């Protein structure tokens, strides 16, 4: 026992030493201080209207810690601030648990619902139940095809096939012959649609590659292996922004000169576009998906307005290249692009 106590005391002493050292060992570059210097642009936002304080709930199929859905949420929260809305958010990547979450918000009698239909069949019943309970539903991101049939007001998002087609056309424009489509989640319908859309318009050959999205070293070594085994590949398309810089590393390791392009945007992708390590990014503007969904629900509650005449409202695809990157960098850093 004495030994354990002595160990504990040693650990405390060490911790204290490190903490003191940390005060001395400051970094004069980067870090939080640099961030604070450039912050303060994102206004917290006050309510701009005096409509009743309605509660809107959003339930997505996002996994834990997904940067994309973080931006969607940022958009939704800022619209909610402006519209005097109480915004609640839930997510689960398992379709069944996602529908249970929606049900729990129906039970709480929220005033509006925003849901994603990544796995439409599992969500059909619960969306119908919301309609029956008189709760207006807006679908976002995925499920444009079925949104109306299920009884949702409207859909806000990007058609994944269309986004893929845009990538295929951009690759043609850049004279690419053999491209690789890197899927980071096996069995995700949206991912398959993106690659299939690309295949449709791309005049060269497109191959698919599955990687384990939650394991970055695996993503890197798998892309590396693919580039080593096929020297003709002249472009790599990743389906999520965090994977693009990893693909750049893989390219360097494999000694390939393929161009790296990606779906979606984040700060590092903006940097990569600017310094030329990335070719282009196709953004679906997730901020808009959250912001518009809340705003459209508010418009419906306030004025019975429905934007898009029941047709999907598209938020993308927007092709971003080197010349746009500089302007978007600041926005990616504050988490709204």
């Amino acid at each position, binding site marked *: 026992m004495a*030994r354990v106590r002595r160990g504990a005391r040693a*650990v405390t002493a*060490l*911790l204290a030493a*490190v*903490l003191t*050292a*940390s005060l001395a*060992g*400051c*970094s*004069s*570059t*980067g*870090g*939080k*201080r*640099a*961030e604070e210097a450039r912050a303060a642009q994102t206004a917290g936002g006050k309510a701009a209207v005096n409509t009743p304080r309605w509660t809107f709930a959003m339930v997505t199929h996002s*996994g*834990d*810690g*997904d*940067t994309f859905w*973080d931006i969607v949420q940022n958009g939704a929260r800022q619209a909610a601030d402006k519209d005097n809305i109480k915004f609640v958010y839930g997510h689960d990547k398992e379709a069944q648990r996602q529908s249970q979450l929606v049900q729990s918000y129906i039970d709480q009698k929220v005033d509006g619902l925003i849901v994603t239909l990544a796995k439409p069949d599992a969500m059909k019943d619960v969306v119908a139940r919301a309609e029956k309970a008189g709760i207006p539903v807006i679908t976002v991101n995925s499920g444009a095809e079925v949104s109306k049939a299920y009884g949702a007001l409207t859909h806000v998002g990007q058609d994944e096939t269309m986004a893929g087609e845009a990538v295929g056309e951009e690759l043609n424009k850049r004279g690419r012959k053999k491209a690789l489509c890197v899927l980071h989640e*096996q069995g995700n319908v949206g991912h398959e649609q993106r690659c299939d859309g690309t295949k449709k318009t791309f005049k060269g050959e497109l191959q*698919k*590659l*599955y990687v384990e999205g*939650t*394991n*970055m*070293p*695996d993503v*890197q*070594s*798998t892309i*590396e*292996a*693919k580039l*080593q*085994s*096929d020297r003709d590949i002249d472009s790599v398309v990743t389906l999520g922004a*965090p994977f693009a*810089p*990893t693909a750049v*590393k893989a390219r360097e*390791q*494999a*000694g390939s000169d393929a161009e790296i392009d990606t779906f979606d945007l*984040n*700060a*590092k992708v903006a940097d990569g576009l600017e310094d030329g390590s990335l070719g282009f990014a196709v953004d679906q503007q997730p901020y808009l998906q959250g912001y518009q969904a809340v705003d459209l629900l508010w418009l419906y509650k306030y004025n019975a307005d429905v934007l898009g005449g029941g047709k999907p409202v598209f938020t993308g695809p927007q092709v971003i290249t080197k010349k746009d990157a500089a302007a978007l960098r600041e926005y990616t850093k504050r*988490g709204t692009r």
Partner: protein
Amino acid sequence: MSTADTPVKDSGPRGGAGPDERLVHRSLARRLMSRPELGAVVGAAAVFLFFSFAADTFLRASSLSTVLYASSTIGIMAVPVALLMIGGEFDLSAGVMVVSSALVSSMFSYQMTANVWVGVGVSLLVTLAIGVFNGFLLTRTKLPSFIITLGTFFMLTGLNLGFTKLISGTVSTKSIADMEGFDSARALFASHLSVGGVDIQVTILWWIGLVALATWILLRTRAGNWIFAVGGGADAARAVGVPVTRTRIGLYMGVALAAWISGQHLLFSYDAIQSGDGVGNEFLYIIAAAVGGCLMTGGYGSAIGAAVGAFIFGMASKGIVYAQWNPDWYKFFLGAMLLLATLLNAWVRKRAEATK
């Protein structure tokens, strides 16, 4: 500790009948046959030969370096996990602990605007503390390690996400690539060196170092005997004076140490960390150790075996890509390959034991 007047003959798992086996001279071949990693080595050779024929790019030096890199990122963790399994316990929190460790160093450096080495140091302490927490709870509550570390797994997953979101405002950390000390830390944890034109990732060196260290501990030190004894039977071990509690806590600290190394690699390789990563990787480490001949019940296994297991996994997962097989079936191929390697492993071991 008190009355051990009856001498215990052999607390290890190899206790056989007949004359005292310690006095029997055995040939080199015999001794090799009885090593736990023998089956895995044969399995690895089989997988290697298979892909040498199935994929023409597999044998290139650059390809092998990629395979070794993939193996090393699993292998670094498989070493202490194997030791832990020999000691009769599991750690389901090992996968997310790697990410926790990376998150701590990244966020500490960033928020304090400190030299990144400070964050790296704090992260080492925090990660070791998680290891102590696992070991301490295990020895105190006497609950199965499966439950304890499953609890830690969920808590860490939640903490990773909650803290990152709370502190950074987003679910991934900010890039620390422009901070002081980053370059020297990257050199240690995530650089690559060119040996005769072949790129060697530094993780491979870490991996080899850890395997050597663990093998030395297991075979040449008193602590190694304790690990085998605790895994073979904790009560019997305690009766002959093995410090069971300390050994177990030490084993969990070993896992934490390797998680710290892997975490720093992750951080300095990609300079920003996704807080949701790492889930599921704990099984890869356990698989590598099990394929490499560690018994799921404890008391038997080796660090080299775990390394060979990680190598099999690395070869199988990248070999499928080199062979350009239809990616829709990727996971199936991977599973079948691992199963076959393990079956071959078990079969070889049975044969080896039969000839003893």
